[in-house]
């Protein structure tokens, strides 16, 4: 059978989505695909483009890579512009003379930034904001500029302004209309947004029409406005809307809309049935959709039509929620109230700087639209009310008033949502999908995320998804029993609060007052860890020793044959030759299997219980202290060599790593904690795979939280940028103590963060903005814990009574006769024993 040949022009987000969707069709083997793109690289995430400026490497923005295309036999031609389409012969021609034949042609050419026709708009430092290359140009230009202007006060314009501000420029926004974000916001909402942005140091000039751009007196350019005023600037970024790339379609006489855009029908066909158009170049029902979600929808519809399905495009919701220059903004449906008979409710809180507006139908029963500025917590709820046409409560104004009682039921119960309600628009996950996932056994957010992908895109739906999950669990009679174990009817968090506030110092007194039975191997180590996090007493004290997991109980790591491994602390992975030799001598004397760890330390295996004190005596004499490799505690801070040695380093990462390791060493926590410090964005210390990652920037340090390697790898999330040393340590103090206070037992920071309602934004509000008013306490708790630090091995060696336990037999000096070894690659290896 002859294969159908599909040619896709444009490899942006939508073009790539088309290919991705084709590849998961059962009939994919009947097609061949070729994509031609004028950009130098395959599709990348344009939505996250601005993160390029906060140090995200291009590689992380990529949506795909060449290997994926090669493995799936998708041909791709980059850096090549299509200049003509021959509809009759079904061929496309490119600038370098290539000719591709097609059966079906997909136009995914996207759009380009509109540059207003202003005299002088073509000068070297007049730029646009659309592709990675544009951003690279802006970055270069910013290095030679002090002042930057963005022309355009819409959504993209404000994003560009944020970028300029982050590049350290004095930033201005010039808007032609009398308000910002005229499409999404009304006058009051826009005025508040303007005030808030101005408070952040960005100047806003509304109602300004630029006449020309000439040479400036104090800066590179002078922008003359029609009202006679002027503004001087060193660079200009135009972001005044987008225009569809429809040149190709025009030149081959496809039907084009009056104001541009390639006209398509409900299955995304253009006026030539063999040519489809999808994404921002396409015009459906006289509308262009400048968001990625409708573009993806069009890609799915086109794939469906080509492979014999019957999906239709029926328009798209243009509601949006985003953070502009740190200000939360949301806009839903008919935000302006253009619908006949529409009525409005609005709420304005000047102290908290929050504005909300609801547009409801004449009957007062249905939500038609909404505007949120300063607080978008209600966005998901309102969007669901709007999308699903759910009846509003008797007095819709309730929806506007912030609820101060955390325990009060949400105004809109998720039970009111139909199963088809789309909760996660990024990954098209419906309420029904979440219910299905719960039925199949997912009972926490982490499980829901990995099974449905919900909340893994922008994360805006996480609160709603959690509500649906909780409600579904309750309905199925699954009481989410989060009691620690049968001995304590409390969560770990509740026990932390009890221990902290009641100042309880021992397991026995906690059990007596708040528990029952004798305890077990779940609650004992958990409580031991909490006691240690807050009071930091020696963990082998008589009242604590029986609580410790075996690793903690003997201050070493139990291995499969009953022997232990020993890991001395090597802060930041920096070690002198003498210390290295000292470790070598110990390993040699006791015949220990020696291996370098992933955390830049050295692990010595095969020590018998009775050998541990003598091994540690020698290590401590050589200047080492315990590495806490045995504890659910702060383990290591990995580092690179930073500015001292590296040609690329921008900060002294090694010294910072050593300082951090020294500060938090041995801090006991719900699970182990690993950290790393990298001296530049090349990230040689792999900080983004750590619980706490620090990456140097020209101006200071970027702080990342919640990374993990291991079984469920997760890249850490950027928490804050360009911090000075003091702020960096202050934030880490608070984050760690908040983690210790609120995480579940054995919950790594990655899962903790994923399960946190409100995610990284909430964590930021607690740690940076002190929303809960606990930052002082968190810092004090850390200071107290650090003040009580001790090297547990040093303390143990000083106490002969404690050393008694470090023998295999209490009544004999014989070692365990079952510790027998063979040799492999010149080192010992345990041999299996059978009884």
């Amino acid at each position, binding site marked *: 059978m002859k294969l159908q040949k599909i040619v896709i022009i444009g490899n942006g987000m939508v073009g790539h989505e088309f290919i991705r969707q084709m590849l998961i069709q059962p009939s994919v083997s009947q097609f061949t695909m070729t994509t031609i793109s004028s950009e130098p690289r395959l599709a990348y995430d344009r939505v996250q483009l601005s993160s390029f400026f906060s140090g995200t490497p291009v590689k992380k923005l990529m949506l795909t890579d060449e290997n994926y295309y090669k493995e799936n036999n998708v041909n791709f031609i980059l850096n090549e512009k299509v200049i003509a389409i021959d509809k009759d012969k079904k061929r496309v021609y490119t600038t370098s003379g290539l000719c591709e034949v097609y059966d079906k042609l997909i136009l995914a050419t996207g759009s380009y930034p509109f540059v207003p026709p202003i005299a002088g708009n073509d000068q070297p430092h007049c730029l646009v904001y659309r592709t990675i290359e544009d951003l690279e140009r802006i970055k270069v230009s910013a290095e030679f500029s002090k002042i930057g202007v963005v022309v355009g006060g819409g959504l993209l314009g404000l994003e560009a302004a944020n970028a300029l501000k982050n590049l350290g420029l004095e930033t201005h926004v010039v808007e032609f209309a009398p308000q910002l974000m005229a499409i999404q916001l009304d006058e009051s909402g826009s005025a508040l947004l303007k005030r808030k942005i101005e408070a952040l140091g960005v100047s806003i000039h509304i109602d300004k029409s630029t006449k020309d751009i000439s040479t400036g007196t104090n800066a590179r350019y002078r922008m003359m406005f029609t009202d006679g005023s002027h503004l001087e600037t060193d660079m200009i970024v135009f972001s005044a809307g987008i225009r569809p790339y429809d040149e190709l379609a025009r030149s081959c006489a496809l039907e084009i809309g009056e104001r541009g855009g390639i006209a398509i029908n409900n299955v995304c066909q253009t006026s030539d049935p063999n040519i489809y158009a999808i994404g921002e170049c396409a015009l459906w029902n006289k509308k262009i959709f400048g968001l990625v979600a409708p573009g993806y929808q069009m890609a799915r519809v086109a794939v469906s039509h080509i492979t014999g399905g019957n999906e239709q495009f029926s328009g798209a919701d243009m509601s949006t929620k985003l953070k502009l220059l740190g200000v939360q903004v949301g806009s839903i449906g008919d935000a302006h109230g253009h619908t006949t008979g529409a009525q409005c409710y609005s709420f304005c809180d000047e102290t908290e700087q929050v504005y909300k507006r609801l547009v409801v139908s004449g009957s007062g029963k249905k939500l038609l639209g909404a505007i949120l500025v300063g607080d978008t917590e209600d966005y998901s709820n309102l969007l669901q009310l709007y999308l699903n046409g759910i009846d509003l409560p008797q007095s819709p104004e309730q929806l506007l008033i912030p609820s101060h009682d955390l325990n009060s039921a949400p105004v809109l119960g998720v039970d009111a949502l139909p199963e088809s309600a789309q909760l996660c628009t990024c990954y098209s996950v419906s309420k029904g999908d979440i219910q299905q996932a719960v039925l199949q056994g997912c009972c926490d957010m982490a499980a829901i995320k990995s099974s449905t992908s919900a909340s893994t895109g922008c994360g805006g739906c996480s609160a709603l998804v959690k509500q649906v999950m909780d409600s579904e669990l309750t309905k199925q009679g699954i009481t989410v029993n989060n009691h620690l174990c*049968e001995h304590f009817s409390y969560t770990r968090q509740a026990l932390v609060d009890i221990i902290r506030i009641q100042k309880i110092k021992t397991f026995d007194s906690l059990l007596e007052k708040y528990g029952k039975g*004798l305890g077990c*191997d779940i609650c*004992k180590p958990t409580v031991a860890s909490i006691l240690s996090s807050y009071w930091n007493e020696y963990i082998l004290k008589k009242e604590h020793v029986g609580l410790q997991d*075996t690793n903690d109980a*003997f201050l070493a790591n139990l291995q*499969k044959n009953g022997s232990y491994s020993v890991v001395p602390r090597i802060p930041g992975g920096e070690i002198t030759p003498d210390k290295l030799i000292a470790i070598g001598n110990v390993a040699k004397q006791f015949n220990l299997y020696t291996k370098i760890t992933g955390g830049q330390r050295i692990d010595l295996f095969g020590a018998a219980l009775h050998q541990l004190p003598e091994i540690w005596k020698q290590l401590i004499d050589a200047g080492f202290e315990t590495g806490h490799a045995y504890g659910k505690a702060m383990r290591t801070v990995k580092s690179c060599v930073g500015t001292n040695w590296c040609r690329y380093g921008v900060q002294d990462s090694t010294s910072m790593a050593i300082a951090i390791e020294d500060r938090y060493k041995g801090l006991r926590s719900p699970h182990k904690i690993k950290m790393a410090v990298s001296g530049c964005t090349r990230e040689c210390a792999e900080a983004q795979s750590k619980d706490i990652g620090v990456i140097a920037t020209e101006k200071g340090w970027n702080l990342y939280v919640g990374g993990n390697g291991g079984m469920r790898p997760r890249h850490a999330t950027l928490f804050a940028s360009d911090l000075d040393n003091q702020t960096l340590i202050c934030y880490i103090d608070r984050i760690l103590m908040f983690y210790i206070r609120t995480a579940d037992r054995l919950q790594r920071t990655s899962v903790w963060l994923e399960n946190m309602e409100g995610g990284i934004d909430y964590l930021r509000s607690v740690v940076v903005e002190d929303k809960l008013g606990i930052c002082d306490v968190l810092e004090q708790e850390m200071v107290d814990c650090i003040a009580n630090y001790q090297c547990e091995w040093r303390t143990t060696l000083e106490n002969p009574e404690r050393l008694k336990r470090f023998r295999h037999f*209490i009544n004999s000096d*014989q070692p365990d006769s079952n510790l027998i070894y063979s040799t492999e690659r010149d080192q010992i290896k345990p041999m299996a*024993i059978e009884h």
Partner: protein
Amino acid sequence: MSRLQTTSLIDHDMTDCLLNKTHQTWGYLCEFNDIPPNSGICVSYQNQQIALFNVNTIKKVYAVSNYDPIGKANVISRGIIGTINEQLVVASPLFKQHFNLKTGICIENPKVCLNIYAIRVYSNAVWIKKYP
């Protein structure tokens, strides 16, 4: 080895053997204070490794074999003790299976069990029942 009943912590029948620590039916293991409260230790008795636990909260001492038949290592004495559904258990430090201290039976896999031994504590000494 046969299953035996464990006995109570204090036994007044053993005054005669206190001084020389020998007895016809009971063998001396160690001093009671050698076992930290609510914790375990390992003793060697006639070439066997025996794990002793001082369940201080209920004033009892229990003895089971120190060999973990699942993890295949001599580590049971280093486990954490506690209760699961009111059964007194020790959790293996290797893979955390729970063994009933009174019967030796593994809760997760009842086909597997530890040996159990009869223990007496008199004054400050721990004794094990000798076998004929």
